[in-house]
């Protein structure tokens, strides 16, 4: 029965060696050499065939017992070593180390304002459409009721690409293109995009962004225009913002109006703690957009019935962004300074 003794000997042997195993790889090595496919236990098991048949059941039973003991020993040591390692790791852990920094990506504030405004209108059922930035005089002026040799053209100093071809001075030409494409009402679109003017100073850049809106439908009136734009202004600047409409002039709308919102810095009071408000220059109002009922001449140029009802509006994206985010300098939009851009991440 010396084979059984050998089996039993494995237990003490493993115990001795386990005491010296201080790392997980050491332990793995021991596991392989004792209970692995070619380990000591397997070696003894192979001798089973040398035993007399009547001895075999007792040997087999013993071998299984020993295997269980060895496995338990190994498992126990494994738990101990794991616990030791975790304890060691805890010592080096520092909750206050800075994290592994991902890059802070950002959408340009112009994009953010455009998307916010377009989302307001998409919710109301408008589609977002676009059009060319290089435009013909016809779409940019004539079809919008700016006659040739008319001072209304002075309202927008124009950059020319060719005779009769301009950099669009507003997003309004897309109104005409949209109506021509749709052939008949209803139409409800918003048109964000780049526009160009021959103008450059502290409050003007030769390129800027506008969002245009156009709706033509059944019995639309000035009250609907007021309601729609008030809804937009309050969605953008908050529920408590007041909106006022001043009569104005645009060739492509009649009646026309400019829309002011109550100053978001001083809440329309004109003063902050007794100091004059620099944003609204004490008027309490900020001009935010132009609008009006679409002029019958524009319908005629666009292939619509002159008696259609509908309205249009346009606003400057940079102006809204400046008010909304408190940006003081228009040039920041086009310098693309990371320190500015990353504030909008």
């Amino acid at each position, binding site marked *: 029965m010396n084979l059984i003794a050998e089996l039993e000997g494995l237990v003490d042997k493993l115990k001795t060696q386990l005491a010296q195993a201080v790392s997980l790889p050491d332990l793995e090595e021991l596991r392989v050499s004792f209970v692995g496919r070619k380990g000591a236990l397997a070696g003894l098991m192979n001798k089973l065939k040398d035993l007399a048949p009547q001895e075999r059941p007792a040997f087999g039973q013993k071998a299984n017992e020993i295997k269980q003991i060895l496995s338990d020993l190994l498992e126990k040591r494994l738990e101990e070593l794991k616990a030791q390692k975790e304890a060691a790791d805890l010592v080096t852990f520092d909750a206050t180390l800075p994290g592994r920094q991902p890059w802070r990506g950002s959408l340009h504030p112009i994009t953010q304002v455009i998307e916010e405004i377009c989302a307001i209108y998409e919710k109301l059922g408008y589609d977002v459409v676009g059009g060319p930035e290089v435009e013909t005089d016809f779409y940019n002026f004539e079809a919008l009721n700016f006659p040739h040799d008319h001072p209304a053209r002075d309202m927008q100093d124009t950059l*020319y690409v060719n005779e009769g*071809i301009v950099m669009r001075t507003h997003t309004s030409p897309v109104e005409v293109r949209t109506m021509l494409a749709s052939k008949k009402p209803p139409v409800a679109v918003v048109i964000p995009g780049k526009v160009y003017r021959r103008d450059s100073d502290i409050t003007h850049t*030769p390129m800027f962004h506008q969002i245009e809106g156009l709706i033509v*439908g059944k019995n639309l009136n000035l009250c609907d225009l007021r309601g729609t734009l008030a809804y937009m202004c309050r969605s953008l600047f908050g529920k408590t913002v007041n909106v006022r409409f001043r009569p104005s002039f645009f060739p492509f709308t009649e009646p026309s109006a400019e829309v002011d919102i109550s100053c978001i810095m001083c809440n329309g009071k004109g003063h902050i703690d007794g100091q004059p408000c620099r944003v609204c220059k004490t008027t309490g109002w900020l001009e935010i957009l132009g609008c009006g009922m679409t002029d019958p001449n524009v319908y005629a140029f666009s292939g619509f019935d002159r008696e259609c009802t509908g309205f249009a509006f346009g606003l400057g994206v940079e102006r809204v962004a400046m008010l909304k985010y408190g940006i003081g300098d228009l040039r920041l939009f086009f310098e693309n300074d990371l320190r500015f851009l990353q504030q909008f991440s």
Partner: protein
Amino acid sequence: MLLSLNWLREFVPYTGSPEELGARLTMLGLELDGVSHPFPAIEGMVVGRIEECKKHPDSDHLILCRVNLGSEIVDIICGAPNTAPGQHVVVAPVGSTMPDGTKVKKAKLRGQESNGIICSERELGLSDDHRGILVLDEEMSGPFTLGQNAREAMGLDTAVLDISVTPNRGDCLSVLGLARETALAFNLPLTLPAIDYAGVERGSCALEGLQLEVESGDVSSYYHLRAIEGLKVGRSPAWLRWRLQGVGQRSISNLVDVTNYVMLELGQPLHSFDLHKVRGGKVRVALAGEGEKLVTLDGQERQLVTRDITIRDAEGPIGLGGVMGGANSDIDAQSSAVLLEGAIFNPSLIRRTSKRLHLSSEASYRFERGVDQSMCGYALERAAAMIAKLGQGKLSAGSLGSEPKPWVAPLLPLRRERAELLIGVSLTPEFCEDCLSKLGCKLEKDCTEAGRETWRVAPPNHRPDLEREVDLIEELARVYGFDNLPQTLPEVERPAEKAGEAKSIYQFVSRVKHWAAGLGLNEVVNYSFVGHKDLDLFGLPAEGRLSIMNPLTSDMDVLRTALLPGLMNSLRNNLAQGAGGLRVFEVANAFTADPASETTAHENLRLGLLFYGDRFSAGWPQTQAEADYLDVKGVVEALLDKLRLPAAVYANMAVDSGKALPWLLPGVSVSLVINGQSVQLGWIGRVKPEIADVYHARKNVWAAELDMDLLYKLSLGVKPRSKPLPVFPPVRRDITVIAPLGLEAEAVLAVIKKSSPAGLESVSLVDLFLPAGGQERNLTFRLTYRAADRTLQDAEVDKLRDSMAAALVKALPVRI
């Protein structure tokens, strides 16, 4: 338009504040830009009387004056030569502030005390005159109240409103026009000033020998002349000078100032010719002859074209009608007879001339916007009488004139029903009638058209902008008050056929932008224009560029044909701020000429990427490294994957076609073509160091540009499908290929993919090793084998790998 409140009060008895007036006008569509207070310098000055003048004992030119300020009598030392007892003068008392900011203090001049300053016109900011003190008795008739505020005593304007007038409201470019709106706003009566003939001598008709001819056609619809003779040119009286100055106009002489005054007051531009300079007894109003020239009043020689309106005498042009007079007929210090012109010229001809010559005058500005023809005769008469009075001349009897096209007010239909439909509230007939009448319209109310109530409305002569029914509806809305209308949110009709429409390019672009920002890239926005020299620097083709005809600067004289020049500007700006790295993107159009397009332009929406410097946003916990080709390419690959498009083929253009892009380093100029597509999607590469250097970039600049229009088009065809997950386990093998330098990884991959029979699920590069000094590199690929229907056996996979190795060695100059 600058509006003096005192001047306005001559037309309408408005008693409120300038701010309140401005607020009401603003809500009527005449926006107040601001209120200014002219003559601020005179704020603290008072009227005094010189009681006594004595020579200063210790000075040849200083004079000791005793000045009565009403409440006290003070001694003031004065250096002016024109002081005399009894004069009423303007005194800056001790404690007041002079226009230059100095505080007036008690002073001692050579031992004598001085308690204030007696002011000259220059010191008061009234003119450049500093020859002596301002003596009020010489400028205006008393009586004067001693100690009275000088600004009040002198009748100076204290409040001037700056009103911005929209191009349709030419009628409001005058005190009269704004007075009409004030009368409307406050329900006040309006009075026109009477023509003042008091003390004016009427003479015989000096115009008898003069022949007037007005060219037929649309040149001028009204042209009248008056003559005033025996005039003395001189300074205008104080009230006139000060009034003009109050609204920012310079006083020139009594004869010229009157025409400006009446224009500002009534809105009618007038012009004075020197009657004696009109040659040959003839005045002709006609279009210019080809090649003619005229020196205008500002001394500039103007080349005329046949669309310019000229005023001519027997020998040639003497004025550019409605724009500016000619130097050859101007009023000068010797002039004694004036030929005064009151006319209406064709607005579009005036505008063309003024635009072409870059010559915008107060006259052309008003003519372009429409002048009330029915007021022209009145304005001419008022100005003629004033000139005669101020120049002590003779007003000749009668005028010489012609009115080829009398003004006829249109008769406009007005459907109250239509007005209610557009405005959205019910409008009573009483409101409409009251409103239109107050605006000066004449109404015929009991008309019908097609069985519907339709009024007929004749707008007043001063409102040529009221041309259509909708213009009248706007007036009704304006007077009703836009802010008195309710706010309603209309339902938006949506046609059923819109269902199932493809996603718009706006949605697509938005999706890409959000993806890029989420990936850690920063969006930039650059101008669409750059300079030709920028495009030249990048070697972008000169053909097909779209130039700006009238650029602001040479930095912005062409539309960009690629996004890269703009991205490089963003890089330069950030490097100047000390940025260590940049990873930016931009979505914008590139523009090229396209003769087939109605706009002459082809606009191609592109995605631009630029990577520079730091690969990681911080130097910890990993070691900082520099961004390279693989950073940009990885982003491009991820984008195609995100859009569920097939992978692209990346071809080194120098190797492939020998044609690298001119702005990229030849060895690293890579073109992209999506698998299965024939058109190029874009490029990736490293910007040439000599170009990068211009933008102060010392490290490698990596960039890419993709065609977003193409990506959008391809993305529309994508139908997302889910794949079932594999059931059986994969078996992995690595293979290291020792390849000569120059053999592209893609070439090795191609053989691997081609030679491997079914069972190879995927292959990816896991290691690249360059043994020192060698001509070879070691590429290690990980091969993943899997069968769909069973677990692969090791031996089986080993065999597959071995046959692949053999194929590689056979096909390529490589070892395994």
